[in-house]
């Protein structure tokens, strides 16, 4: 129910139901009232009129009798005319009553009244007719004798008719009263039913609405609490934001000053970069010349290395030759030793030969010693050559490395020149950009000032929001208390 119908739908439905029921009650009341009114109209229009006519009839009867007595006593023709007018009127009343008779009893009673009146009238007319010559007393006696019974008969008939009409009137009144009572009871019952329905609807509506309102109030309570917390946070955040905005404004001002300083520095850098580009181009030319010199040195060093290697190879060949000389000296030495031995075996004849052999041996020894010295020297020379070759190769490599470094330096100078040109352009761009940045920072400063103002306003509005949220929370608590008290009640 809660999910299908809204609060207003429920109220509208309940009121519509009550209105429908009220319309039904009203319709029933109207019908009952019309019935009662019809019944009363019947009583008033028909029965009371007939009763009145009956009373009229009674009155006319008495008037006719009086008129008759007055004529008889006075012999005044007016009374006779009045008598006859009264009789006509009485006939008319009887005819009217007859034409409106509803029951056989009424018709029978009217017939009796009619006959009694006819009889009475004949009797009266007869007395009147005879009264011209008779005295008052005789007329009186004749009336008492002849007319009086008829008149009594007429009066009894009229009385019976009156009693019947009275009963009929009473019955009609009673029927109307009964109808009114039934209508009243029906209306009372419907009203009671309507009250019961209204009470039930009020109870169910109150219950449903109170539950719905309670839920809504709980939601409102939690939402207002959250809103309060959020508003508090927002207020705190707005304060912090205002503080931050103030700091940002200060920082932006500093940034503005720094941007102007950067623009000035960029202009100075552009000038220095242009000077550096000129110096780099001069250095590049110097490095190119140095590179040519290094190439020449490298070629010379390669020539030296080749010569030293050739020297090493030749000293190696000298070593080989020296090896042969050494072996020859050794062989000579051995030959000299053997010659000495052989000379000793030859005795005295070989003594001089022994001397020669000894000298040859000594010579061979000295040659062997000299070859050792030469070998030492050659080894030293080869070692020196090797060291020189290695040093030269190392130098050559160093020269190559130097040449490569020169190439790299030349390339670096070229790159420096290009980079300096780029730096010059970049410095000019930086100068331009910094000017633009300065303008932008000024605009940002202005915007930040506006934002700071907006932040202060936001801080004020967040405080207002917090106050509103607090009021809403208080209202939701009051509403919750109200709903709970209603539920408790």
């Amino acid at each position: 129910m809660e999910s299908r119908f809204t609060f207003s739908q429920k109220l509208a439905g309940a009121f519509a139901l009550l209105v429908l029921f009220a319309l039904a009650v009203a319709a029933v009341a109207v019908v009952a009232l019309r019935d009662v009114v019809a019944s009363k109209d019947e009583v008033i229009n028909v029965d009371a009129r007939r009763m009145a006519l009956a009373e009229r009839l009674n009155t006319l009867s008495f008037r006719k009798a009086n008129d008759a007595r007055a004529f008889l006593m006075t012999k005044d023709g007016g009374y006779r005319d009045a008598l006859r007018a009264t009789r006509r009127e009485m006939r008319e009343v009887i005819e009217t009553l007859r034409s409106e008779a509803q029951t056989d009893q009424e018709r029978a009673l009217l017939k009796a009244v009619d006959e009694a009146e006819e009889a009475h009238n004949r009797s009266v007319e007869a007395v009147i007719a005879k009264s011209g010559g008779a005295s008052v007393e005789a007329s009186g006696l004749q009336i008492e004798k002849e007319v009086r019974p008829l008149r009594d008969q007429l009066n009894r008939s009229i009385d019976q008719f009156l009693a019947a009409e009275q009963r009929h009137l009473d019955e009609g009144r009673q029927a109307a009263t009964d109808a009114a009572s039934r209508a009243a009871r029906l209306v009372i019952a419907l009203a009671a039913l309507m009250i019961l329905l209204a009470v039930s609807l009020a109870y169910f509506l109150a219950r449903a609405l109170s539950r719905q309102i309670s839920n809504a109030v709980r939601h409102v309570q939690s939402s207002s609490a959250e809103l309060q917390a959020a508003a508090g946070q927002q207020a705190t955040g707005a304060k912090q934001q205002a503080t931050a905005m103030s700091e940002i404004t200060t920082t932006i001002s500093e940034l503005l000053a720094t941007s102007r300083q950067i623009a000035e520095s960029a202009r100075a850098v552009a000038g220095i970069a242009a000077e550096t580009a000129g110096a780099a181009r001069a250095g590049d030319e110097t490095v190119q010349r140095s590179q040519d010199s290094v190439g020449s040195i490298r070629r010379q060093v390669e020539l030296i290395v080749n010569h030293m290697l050739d020297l090493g190879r030749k000293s190696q060949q000298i070593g080989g030759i020296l090896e042969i000389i050494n072996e020859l000296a050794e062989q000579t030495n051995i030959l000299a030793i053997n010659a000495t031995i052989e000379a000793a075996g030859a005795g005295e004849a070989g003594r001089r030969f022994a001397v020669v052999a000894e000298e040859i041996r000594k010579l061979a020894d000295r040659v062997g010693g000299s070859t050792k010295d030469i070998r030492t020297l050659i080894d030293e020379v080869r070692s020196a050559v090797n060291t020189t070759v290695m040093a030269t190769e190392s130098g050559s490599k160093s020269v190559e490395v130097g040449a490569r470094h020169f190439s790299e330096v030349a390339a670096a100078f070229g790159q420096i020149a290009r980079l300096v040109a780029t730096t010059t352009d970049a410095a000019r761009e930086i100068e331009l950009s910094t000017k633009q940045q300065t303008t932008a920072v000024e605009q940002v400063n202005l915007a930040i000032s506006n934002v700071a103002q907006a932040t202060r306003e936001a801080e004020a509005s967040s405080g207002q929001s917090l106050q509103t949220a607090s009021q809403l929370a208080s209202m939701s608590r009051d509403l919750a208390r109200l709903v709970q008290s209603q539920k408790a009640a």
Partner: protein
Amino acid sequence: MSASTLDELRRAFDAVFAVAPSGARRLEVPLLALRAGGEPLAVRALETAGLQRLPRVVALPSRRPEVLGVTGWRGAVLPVYALSRLLGLPDGAEPPRWMLLCGEERLALAFTAFEAHVRVAPEALEPAVSGAARPALRELVHLDGRVRPVVSIPDLLMAIHRP
């Protein structure tokens, strides 16, 4: 070899023949300084028949461990003895590369290295104290500040031919 060294050699060589031979020189003993089995030794040069590099030695089975084999020399086949083994010395690390030719017996004594040919005065030779233990080493000689046993080739040949 520089020109001055060559001139010096030539002058020394010529000077020997320019002066009269001295008597004292005749008495000097020619010695061959060598090494056998790692031991420095000396041999009287005139006790040998010659000094040569050791040619290829063909090993032969023998009752005597001193015999290394035979080798050819000037059309003759010579038995080769290890000098170190004949003297009761260890063989040493290096193989023998030289040989001494010995007298009429026509045999060769192999040794490791030939070091020098020297001439010493007779008084430089002195008898060895341990001569009884090694009969072939009866003398000692001082060469270059070192004492060398002097091998007696005749005693060694007697020991070889002793049954």
